[in-house]
């Protein structure tokens, strides 16, 4: 039994480490995943997400550390004695079994002596959930990539475990289908109160679906927090960067009052951030970040109105369908990215020309002061 485990915890992980030779795939990770919560693991390729999941599932023995599920220490229990199911990143469908048989595989163990009728009922249900009704009799090698992935998903869902581990379960689906499955998953999770541990490489997916997110980097957890906070208030430069908030402003503390913090931008100009400045001393070097969609390009300097404004040159413009991306540089030659949703009514198509000048403005409350790279939450 693991010490100091809040009762509502579903999966408790304590200083878990997995080494492959000298590679530390997972490095002293600790976390409490709450019962019934939708918990996402986010992080760059190779950061250790799958390995962590595989240890929870019981497919890798940790080099160090312990895992408890529903209060019981399962660190050394085999997979089939853990109340968890996994959707494998590479599907791991049984090539010799039909879609039907794959999905039905686990049922007989879950509920002993389940009658054929109910069984096929559950299978049909799971398949319709992933929109594969009609594919019952196919063999895996007769399916497309996305179809295989959906079968893998159905197979795990059919068992309605208390904890479901999903390793990029929607990676191979087109956005439309993906959105639909996302909704269904979320629904299912709420309805059945299953704990989801969800690995994804898609920030948006993580944000829309998760209660909490853990951002991993090189086997360690950089930040673990409510979805929105990870996005809006990245704790470290890495997180900020990874969440696509790649607009970093270097500055020095000019004046640190209780209610606000006056900064002198490296690129020149001054900004006031509405946050408790007591933690800072004058002349401290600080960096803050503003998300691209929260930056605005203006023709006029608005600092007079107390709006942070930085003079920039427009370097490039990338059409992205829903939005347009502006690439700009300030006097200090720092690069900034601005998202602008395309063509709201009554705004002239493009007020700015590539090569032209403009002012970068933002709502001071959207600036997030961050810890320098490395230091974790």
């Amino acid at each position: 039994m693991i010490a100091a485990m809040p009762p509502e915890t579903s999966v408790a992980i304590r200083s878990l480490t997995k080494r492959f030779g000298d590679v530390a795939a997972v490095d002293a990770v600790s976390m409490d995943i709450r019962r019934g919560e939708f918990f996402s693991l986010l992080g760059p390729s190779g950061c250790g997400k799958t390995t962590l999941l595989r240890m929870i599932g019981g497919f890798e023995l940790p080099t160090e550390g312990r895992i408890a599920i529903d209060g019981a220490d399962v660190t050394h229990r085999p997979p089939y004695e853990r109340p968890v199911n996994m959707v494998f990143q590479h599907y791991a469908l049984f090539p010799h079994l039909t879609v039907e048989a794959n999905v039905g595989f686990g049922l007989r163990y879950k509920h002993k002596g389940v009658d054929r009728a109910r069984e096929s009922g559950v299978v049909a249900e799971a398949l319709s959930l992933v929109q594969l009704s009609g594919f019952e009799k196919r063999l895996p090698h007769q399916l497309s990539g996305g179809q295989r992935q959906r079968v893998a998903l159905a197979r795990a869902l059919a068992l309605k475990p208390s904890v479901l581990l999903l390793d990029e379960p929607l990676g191979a689906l087109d956005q439309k289908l993906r959105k639909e499955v996302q909704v269904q998953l979320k629904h299912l999770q709420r309805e059945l109160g299953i704990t989801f541990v969800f690995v994804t490489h898609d920030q948006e997916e993580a944000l829309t679906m998760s209660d909490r997110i853990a951002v991993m980097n090189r086997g360690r957890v950089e930040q673990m927090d409510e979805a929105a906070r990870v996005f809006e208030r990245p704790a470290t430069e890495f997180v900020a960067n990874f969440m696509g908030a790649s607009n970093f402003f270097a500055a020095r503390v000019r004046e640190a009052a209780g209610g606000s913090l006056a900064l002198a931008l490296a690129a020149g100009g001054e900004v006031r951030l509405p946050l408790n400045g007591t933690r800072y001393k004058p002349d401290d070097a600080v960096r803050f970040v503003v998300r691209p969609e929260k930056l605005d390009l203006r023709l006029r300097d608005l600092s007079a109105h107390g709006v942070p404004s930085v003079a920039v040159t427009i370097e490039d413009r990338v059409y992205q369908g829903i939005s347009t991306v502006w690439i700009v540089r300030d006097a200090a030659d720092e690069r900034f990215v601005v998202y602008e949703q395309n063509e709201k009514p009554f705004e002239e198509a493009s007020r700015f020309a590539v090569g032209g000048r403009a002012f970068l403005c933002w709502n001071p409350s959207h600036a997030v002061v961050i810890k320098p790279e490395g230091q974790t939450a």
Partner: protein
Amino acid sequence: MSAIPNPKSVIRNRVNPALPLVLPTWLVIGVFFLLPLTILFVISFAQRGTYGSLKPIDDFAQYVRSGKILANYARSLHPIYLQIFWRSVWMAVVTTVLCLALSYPVAYYIAVVAPPRRRNFLLGLAVVPFWTSFLIRTYAWMFLLRTEGLINRLLLGTGLISHPLELLYNNFAVLIGLLYGEIPFMILPLYASLEKLDLSLLEASADLGAPRASTFLRVTVPLTMPGIVAGIILVFVPSLGQFIVSDLLGGARTILAGNLIQNQFAVARNKPFGSAVAFELTAAVLALLFVYAAYTRKKGQDVLL
């Protein structure tokens, strides 16, 4: 990630690339096996003449009409022979089953559990004993099993038994001998197909709650079925034709199909009858294979040649 064979892949569709691959076999087996066999097949309809040569047939029509042409086959259906066949099949079945049961864990250990760089080593160790003379090995077994043999001495010495066990010159000894001789022919094919087993599938099964036994039966076995079948064929059939083992270890007190044929060729010098029996046996086994092949095709798997 599970294998994705592509039934309609181009590599298959180019104008018959298979021919150069099968030609050598057709040559080797066709010429040096099928032809010779046809000769013997013809002989199997003849009659033994004095001195073991063939009796000349002066009036073929008459020979056919009188049914003499099938005399050998008719004779081989005599209850006495049927009884022999039955006993042989039974022996072979027992041997094969035991062999499979004993070999699978070994193959599994070598192919899956043992560190990869030790596999060939272990595999080698499993076969080298069989690069020594069969006869000498059998003598060694006799030495171990006989009344004053090592095993009995040890057992007596440890006081586990009061008087020696009859281990030699009976079916038990024959079984030991057959098992011993056939084990590598089971281990190797099993190894070949276990070695490519995709372990993530075992993980998936375990994840879905299947205890080890079920995982084994529902995933491992089906996926290695080709190896199992290969092993069964390579063990069952030869142990059906075995005769030296039963002669030496069994004390030649029972006679198996193998002996029967052997005697016809070597002692009675009745090639026609010997061949007839042999071909009957062959037909029977082939029939078995057909049934099995049909069955598996129906299930859309390929586990035979």
